[in-house]
């Protein structure tokens, strides 16, 4: 009333009144934005971006998940995975970088997805295309919830854009409720999504692959097998002939390689680049945020297709000879020729890669990751430290689907031949002999190791450890690296000076009663009292 009196008083004298309800002029508002297809695509890109499916540094961090496993070691006390692996992380602890709690608990991606879904119907555009985009966004939201569920258990289920304060009263759902939501959403979108899309966008295959991954995690082996099989039956995916080249930027435009990548996060350097330098060797400008452990080195079979302890031809003093080709594709080891030099992490000679150097940014285990990191001649940018690389991160790859299918069948103890065939398809591509085992127990052991080496450093090991309930065993105790020794810098021949492997960093502690579920960040509990903490934290 007051306002009306004043306004009418003013308008009597002024020619026009200042409008007190203004729209922003150098940004869009939700009222003005959703008017064109271009706006929708741009907003869709934002939902993709904020879902953080990538693996690189501060861009999804998926590769760093292996630092929280027996595959790798992270030396940096300002990066979350080092604490999480040691068992010294707390709900209140904040890390400067790679804070997986706060990356994965964050709801920005979910809010963006909800925002898209709430507004996209305002736009007049091709209905079919719009339906596909909505399905993509629902997939992305499901992906986000699936990852939250796999790390934290049940979380609050938010399906609309919240006002400030609304979050305070929303409690967590159970793990089963989140899983059910994810699977239901995926079930819906599978039928809408097309078989093929622009690289980087969600397809029917990606939705089925995520569904299979979640079902396997939930030990719903029947449906996991069905959905993995459904991916196989789409007849658009196949394994690439060269295991190593799948992860190289150089081969990303090879149609055969793209048949293996079901979903990937793509880059477009130099404007939009992947950050690969955390993993590169130090003389190339890298800083080793992930150092392979002796444990993962030992997991690679010999070229005879046997575990090292089962193969009499395995010589512990020539540990790097005659191994699974995937070992050579994935790990840089002492004595190997790397970028025109002999990689020597055993001694303080040459480019300083010595595991015991006082310098930072070097591998403390004596091993470096080679997957994603080709030698410079094969690296299009030629300078990983400049962060102008364009290597994609593959979120789902056909090999995972095959192994999921195999594991799901093995756990059901049915169609074991089909299971073995799926594993053998993966092994054959890698250049490994096929399996001879036929019983469930042996095949289970085989498929689990196959997953570990095939998918090493792709960020899936932690979920596998959780599913197989093995973290209590593999994540307790010291982390081992190379054996001390000398390297002939002409031939690369290694001479060991000790039978014992070095230990790296502090002894890892894993509490099976609590560590399978990460803590909800304490600051969020403080701000939203309806949130409850996971047991033991």
């Amino acid at each position, binding site marked *: 009333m007051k306002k009306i009196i004043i306004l009418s008083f003013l308008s009597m004298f002024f020619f026009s009144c*200042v409008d*007190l309800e203004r729209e922003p002029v150098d940004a*869009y508002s*939700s009222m003005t934005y959703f008017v064109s297809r271009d706006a929708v695509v*741009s907003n869709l890109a*934002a939902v993709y971006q904020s879902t953080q499916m990538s693996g690189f540094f501060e861009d999804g961090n998926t590769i760093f998940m292996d630092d929280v496993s027996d595959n790798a070691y992270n030396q940096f006390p300002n990066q979350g995975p080092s604490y999480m692996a040691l068992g010294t992380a707390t709900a209140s602890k904040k890390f400067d970088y790679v804070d997986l709690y706060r990356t994965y608990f964050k*709801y920005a991606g979910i809010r963006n997805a909800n925002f898209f879904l709430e507004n996209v119907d305002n736009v007049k555009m091709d209905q079919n295309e719009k339906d596909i985009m909505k399905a993509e966004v629902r997939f992305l939201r499901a992906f986000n919830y699936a990852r939250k569920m796999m790390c934290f258990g049940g979380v609050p289920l938010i399906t609309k854009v919240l006002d*400030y304060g609304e979050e305070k009263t*929303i409690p967590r759902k159970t793990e089963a409720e989140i899983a059910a939501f994810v699977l239901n959403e995926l079930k819906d979108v599978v039928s809408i999504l097309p078989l093929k899309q622009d690289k980087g966008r969600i397809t029917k295959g990606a939705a089925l692959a995520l569904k299979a991954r979640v079902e396997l995690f939930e030990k719903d082996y029947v449906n996991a097998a069905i959905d993995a099989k459904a991916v196989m039956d789409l007849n658009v995916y196949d394994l690439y002939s060269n295991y190593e080249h799948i992860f190289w930027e150089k081969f990303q435009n090879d149609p055969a390689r793209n048949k293996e990548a079901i979903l990937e996060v793509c880059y477009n350097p130099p404007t939009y680049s992947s950050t690969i330098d955390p993993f590169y060797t130090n003389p190339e400008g890298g800083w080793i945020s992930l150092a392979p452990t002796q444990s993962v080195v030992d997991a690679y079979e010999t070229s005879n297709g046997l575990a090292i302890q089962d193969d009499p031809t395995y010589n512990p003093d020539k540990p790097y000879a005659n191994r699974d080709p995937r070992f050579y594709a994935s790990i840089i080891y002492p004595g190997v020729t790397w970028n025109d030099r002999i990689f020597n992490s055993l001694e303080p000679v040459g480019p300083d890669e010595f595991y015991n150097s006082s310098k930072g940014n070097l591998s403390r285990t004596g091993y470096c990751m080679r997957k994603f990191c080709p030698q410079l001649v094969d690296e299009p940018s030629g300078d990983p430290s400049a962060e102008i690389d364009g290597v994609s991160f593959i979120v789902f790859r056909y090999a995972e689907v095959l192994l999921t299918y195999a594991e799901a069948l093995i756990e059901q103890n049915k169609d074991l031949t089909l299971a073995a065939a799926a594993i053998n398809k993966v092994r054959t591509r890698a250049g490994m002999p096929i399996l001879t085992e036929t019983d469930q127990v042996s095949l289970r052991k085989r498929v689990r190791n196959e997953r570990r080496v095939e998918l090493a450093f792709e960020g899936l090991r932690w979920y596998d450890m959780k599913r197989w309930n093995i973290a209590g065993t593999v994540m307790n105790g010291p982390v081992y690296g190379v054996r001390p020794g000398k390297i002939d810098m002409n031939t690369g021949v290694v001479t060991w000076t000790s039978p014992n492997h070095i230990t790296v960093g502090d002894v890892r502690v894993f509490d099976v009663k609590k560590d399978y579920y990460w803590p909800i960040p304490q600051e969020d509990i403080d701000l939203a009292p309806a949130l409850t903490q996971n047991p033991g934290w």
Partner: protein
Amino acid sequence: MKNKSQEKINSTMKYFVSFRLLALLFSFLFSSFAFSAVAQDVKITLSIKDKPLMEVLNAIEAKSGYSYLVRSNDVNLNEIVSIDAENKSVREVLTQLFKQSQIDFEIKGKSISIFKPQTKQKEGSGNQQIRKISGVVTDKNGEPIIGASIIVKGSKSGTITNKDGQFSIDAPDQSVLIVSYIGYTSVNVVVENQKRVVVKLTETLKALDEVVVVAFGTQTKQTMTSSVTQVSSKVLENRPTTNVLAGLQGQVAGVNITQSSGQPGQSPSISIRGIGSLNSGTAPLVIIDGIPGSLSMVSADDVESVSVLKDAAACSMYGARAANGVVLVTTKKGKLGKMSVSYSGYVGSQKPTELFQEANAYNYATAYNTAKMADAITSTNTNYDPTKKVFTQAQLDDWKSGKVASADWRGSLFSENGFTQSHSVNIAGGVSGDKVSIKNNLSFNYLQQKGNVVNTDYKRYSVRENGEVRWGKFTSGFTVGLSNAKTGAPTSFIGDLGSIIGAINRQRSVDPIKIWDDWNTAGTKDTRNPVRQALEGGTSKTNLYNALVNINLAYEITSGLTVKFTNGVNYSNYANDAFINSLEWVTAHDASGKATMTDLTGPNSDTRTTYQDIHYLQQLDVNYRKSFGKHNIAVILGGQQEYHSYNELDARRTNFILNTSSSLQLGSADGSTNSSTFYDWGIMGAFGRVNYDFNKKYLFEVNFREDGSSRLSPGKNWDFFPSFSAGWRISEESFMETLKPVLSEMKLRASYGVLGNQNIPGANNNQYYYPYQAIIGPVAYTYYTFGSNLYNPMTITQSPNNTFTWEKTALTDIAVDGNLWKGLVSYSLGYFNKKTTDMLMLTNVASVNGGSAFVSNVGSMRNYGFEFELGFNKTTSNGITFSANGNLTYMTNKLTDLGGQDLAAAGVQRNMVGYPLGAYYLYQNDGLLTKEEFQNSATKLLKGQKWGDQKIKDVSGPNGIPDGVISADDRVNTGKSSTPKWLFGLNFDVSYKGFGIAGMLQGAADYYKYLGGSVGYGFNSGYSTTQWTIENSYNPLVDESNYNSRLPRLSTTNTINNNYPSDKFLFNCTYVRLKNLQFYYNIPTEVCGKLKINNIKIYFSGQNLFTLSALPKALGVDPEIGNATGGYPLVKIATLGLNIKF
């Protein structure tokens, strides 16, 4: 749906159209006024029969606007006369009137003198001889007073002074002439033998009936109930400053003005009654002639008065923008009378007040060697190891003997001769006709400042036109201020001038500025050679145009009731062009002297920034003033609307072929960047004030404003800001009668009110200006790729926030003011309490929301204090005039609520409940570690700690109790801050016979600076250090047992000092400074008159001449400077000035 943006365009267009129409209307009015004003001959029609002459004269006076004076006492004003004239000039009417009588008349300007022609007096006839006396009447500065009346005591004859202050009168010998003028004390002159008299009138102590500019009007000081301090142009004139704010420093109690840099063109900062907010803007609202504007664009020469509005009663008519107080600037207007032309100007030279006193090379190297040896000590080897020395004895000897010079980096940077000049020409006057009068004031100003650092300068050109036309009941005003300021400063690849001075701090006296006759690149990699950077690194040029226009029209409906419409605009156009040069450096010389050149500083670049900032204002107000017997009432009611828009464009290119090219297209398109910023807001308000007083004894006032702003959520964006005040002039009570000769005036007053602060903080403009909108923007620095196409992801970057409103500030003010001994001493003592509530702070939100931290009203803080003003003004019988006025302020602030948030320390400061804003949060020093303690294995040493290092008190632990470990928990809030608790200022002026000394002392007390590296401790990352630091540090080689030194030992690593910033390095900065001292001379009117000049004043003035400070003088740190080691010091200025009025 109708397109909303189209609607907006329409309304904006309407706005523009209306604005232009109005401008057109006014220009038309002006030309017609000007026309009628030329027709000066006033024609009157008069028909009177058989009335006394006096009545006829009164009628002529009323109709013509001329005033009459009866010059000789034998004119019989009661003589019965008749007149019948139609449309005749005054001269014609008077001729007709006096046709029959002996009376003669004379018309001069607007005055009519009536007299009986002298019948030649015979020599010696009569008792008294009539003398013709002529003379001049001036004010104490020798300025002529126009229209002063001179009356022969006991007679009716008299005259008034003409435009030059001259008069001539016939008076009997031994009679007394009474010379008087409103506002001045009358003077009696006894007629003796003199033929010519010079009369100087001094102003009546105006403390009481002084007119003070307040919100939307004026009030008299006598009956004011709010807290306003008005500073007149006289105060500003006495101090040749380059900025109005600088001129106000130390003049107003409760106002803190800090000049933290002496760089040309830098404005001081101002806060009124403390800093009232943690995050929101704390600058007062500045209104120039009714339109919000910037003080730095107004020449001090153009200022008539500045009113500082301090309490809620004074400010609440500005509502939502007044929480930080209001500064009202009124510029000079023309006065009726002959056109006067005046010039005022000065030239001056300047140099830094203090330069950071770095140790010379010998002392630096000696101390460095000692520090190196001390740093190398371990618990197992406590001997000083001479091999750790860095500088050899030969080097030391060379420096000591002077064979090798010590480098003076800072001196080289500040080596330019600083220069200041200011010139103003003012043309003012006014004419009046029958019903029309025009007053006009036109001025031109030029100001130039050349700094002490190469390439620093500032130039400002300004023109101001103030016109007023009265036409019957209409009055229209027209103000245009145009200014252009050009600022130049060096820039470089390491940054702007601030960065260059900061880099100087990293240069050591042991490193020469030049080697091989080329620039030394001794500076650490990130700074190179800052002396060269200043000289050749590039320049940043800023060009700012500002136009401030106010057009208004008032109409007097009936006596006392006026309606006024104001339309104003403030427009700024800013352009900055910063070119950073690429430089080749000589990095090596071979034996033959061949130089190796290397580009160490990267490619050149040009960055351009331009913006347009526009503020429109429209205002309509109604004024009513009336007295009913002893009841006096004044009312103002009005409405105001304002619209503000800001539009910025930035662009940058690099890799120009030449350093001289600064046109963007000459640079490489590769890597070019550009961006823009655009925001706007509107505010609308209705305001009012009611004054009532009974017999000017009991005073009451109510102010209010209802404000609506586009910055808050529709529906929640209107708010009401009221204030109440009352006063009681005790001195007017009968029971005070006996005290009246001493306690001439005493008024008790109090006010309370609530003000708003709409300067909402925010990370980005949209959060700042449209908080109620969901903002869609680009996701910072990221993209996304579909296929091979790059997309710019756009999403919700800000959720709508309907939760907050503006900050509220409640102000209580109690004061007593008045004067003693009939105005000899004026005084004012006040208390204020300012409580800011609903303080805007960023509030974190749980991740589950998905949004980021948002602004909400949570905290509160309080500023309170006392203000004391005292003035003294006396002219002795022998003509010495003495005046002094001083002010003293105590104020302090305290954060009272932070909404439960535990704010992290920001460096050495932390905001905590119960402590002042920005209080220092430091470790407690516990003396120095002794050698015995060092060697005692029971002592828990900090990492790197040696004897002579500071010890830190273990005051707390994670659980609040001392835990035997020195950790971040041991930091303590000292309650000391960098905001002074005491402020004081003192002006004085003594003059005699035209000569005078005027000056100003200003000071601040109880405030602190944390001075760490280079001052509190040296060699910080190879930085320079002061001689004072070396002398006051623990030095084991001088006296190993002296652990009472002011500072700990010098160290080249400074681990303990850096890691444990302690109260040891907190320096009290209390100071008193002679801000200004002026010697002036007013050339006597006699001399001026011969030169056909009204007044000439010449002066010599010095600024910042002398400082007493609690800071050690030997540090070379100016107590006022913002950044002790990396700032541009304040400057001492010596000026020679001249004011002439024709």
